[in-house]
């Protein structure tokens, strides 16, 4: 399968790989996917008092497109408010990375990951 230059770039030089402290109340963690399906994405966001995402980290088990989708997502969510981050659509990711149809699910997973991370963060604030 031929990958776009952008997928290759993110795959070979992934941005923001790593972990944040899951127990920190300013951190939201979203883990989506399943090993059985061949991809698992973990996205973590650090949110400041103004509700702006200051930092984002990811780790992904999956194909090159899944890794690229999550790497791109961390770049996009940084500096965004939680509301703005939740507006990110999988189609935008798929378009930016020129994902072929069989790989669109990777961008869907990325959209699910940011939603899950925001949800986790919000839940923590309610406590």
């Amino acid at each position, binding site marked *: 399968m031929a990958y776009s230059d952008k997928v290759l770039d993110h795959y070979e030089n992934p941005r923001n*790989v790593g972990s944040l402290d899951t127990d920190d109340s300013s951190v939201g963690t979203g883990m989506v996917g*399943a090993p*059985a399906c061949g991809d698992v994405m973990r996205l973590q966001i650090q949110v400041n008092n103004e509700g702006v995402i200051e930092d984002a980290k990811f780790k*992904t*088990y*999956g*194909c090159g497109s*899944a890794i690229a989708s999550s790497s791109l997502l961390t770049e996009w969510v940084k500096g965004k408010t939680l509301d703005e981050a939740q507006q990110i659509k999988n189609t935008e990711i798929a378009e930016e990375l020129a994902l072929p149809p069989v790989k669109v*699910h990777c961008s869907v997973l990325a959209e699910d990951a940011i939603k899950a991370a925001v949800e986790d963060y919000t839940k923590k604030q309610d406590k």
Partner: protein
Amino acid sequence: MKLPIYMDYSATTPVDPRVAEVMCQYLTPDGGFGNPASRSHKFGWDADEVVEKARRDVAALINANPKEIVWTSGATESDNLAIKGVAQFYQKKGKHIITSKTEHKAVLDTCRQLERDGFEVTYLDPEDSGLIDLKKLEAAMRDDTILVSIMHVNNEIGVIQDVEAIGEMTRARKILFHVDAAQSAGKVPLDMETMKIDLLSLSSHKIYGPKGMGALFVRRKPRVRLEAQMHGGGHERGMRSGTLATHQIVGMGEAFRIAKEEMPAENERLLMLRNKLWNGLKDMEEVYLNGDLEQRSAGNLNVSFAYVEGESLIMALKDIAVSSGSACTSASLEPSYVLRALGREDELAHSSIRFSIGRFTTEEEIDYVIKLVREQVTRLRELSPLWDMFKEGIDLKSVQWAAH
């Protein structure tokens, strides 16, 4: 050393230059281009002569009578001809067929088609080693079983089935026995005098011959009958019509002649290289060999690197031509059905790489591959949340995954 390194010899092999040279002599106006079926002139007689020599060379590798060799377009056609041909000819005797879940698609899809035509097929589960338990095979045999089809060497995991023992069981029950030997001819000894195999599918391009060429061994004593699948000029004693492709046949013949001559030395060299590769990888954490190590063809190594996804690993190994399974299914995103049938969990089936080495693989290439694989698996594990969880001692099975 040239990059990328070819390590996908189970998918196909390059034509041996010695084979290509011979093939070129049967194409052009000053070569032997005649139709082997032309009985009225020298062009035809000459072509027929080299076709029959090739038939002897192919027969010699498996110790068969040349009259038992039927030319086909490849092992897929041979499998179709053997299975459908037998099923249609012997259907009055019974309509039950036994095969295994780890067969090549050419066998599985042919059996599926026969099921639609009213036949009943039993698909045996192999053991975790990839080998068929002969007791389970015996238990599956019935009075109306007409055919057992079991491959010799598996294309994905390289394990060698005990076709000799299976042949004894089928012959004793007067059940016909078909063996797909596409991956084994020239790599594992085959002897039609001693093995009670009734039909044997052969491929040319897996053993340094040209693509688009194969053969089916059809036993004469006791005689095996087939319903032809290709009708026409009555070539190949009516079993497979169509003008014989002289240059292809000559290529297959020469490839098989070389294979017979060089097999002992070549196997020894391949085994040395394969063991070197495995020894260079097996001390890594969470690395699993798929399929039995002992009952295995020399050129095959199938390894799962847990917590790393196969497609991303193949992408990382772009300087090596490898596959995550068979070439026929590499376009699908599903994990290997062969590894699943072995009871491998999905994440291990998703993380498998098949290294298949061959005649032109060098020791230098093996060293390069070991280094690259180790680096890239480590890199991808640093990216993998599953690796983190494994390191934290979390049992992945205890996690509630949001399947999608």
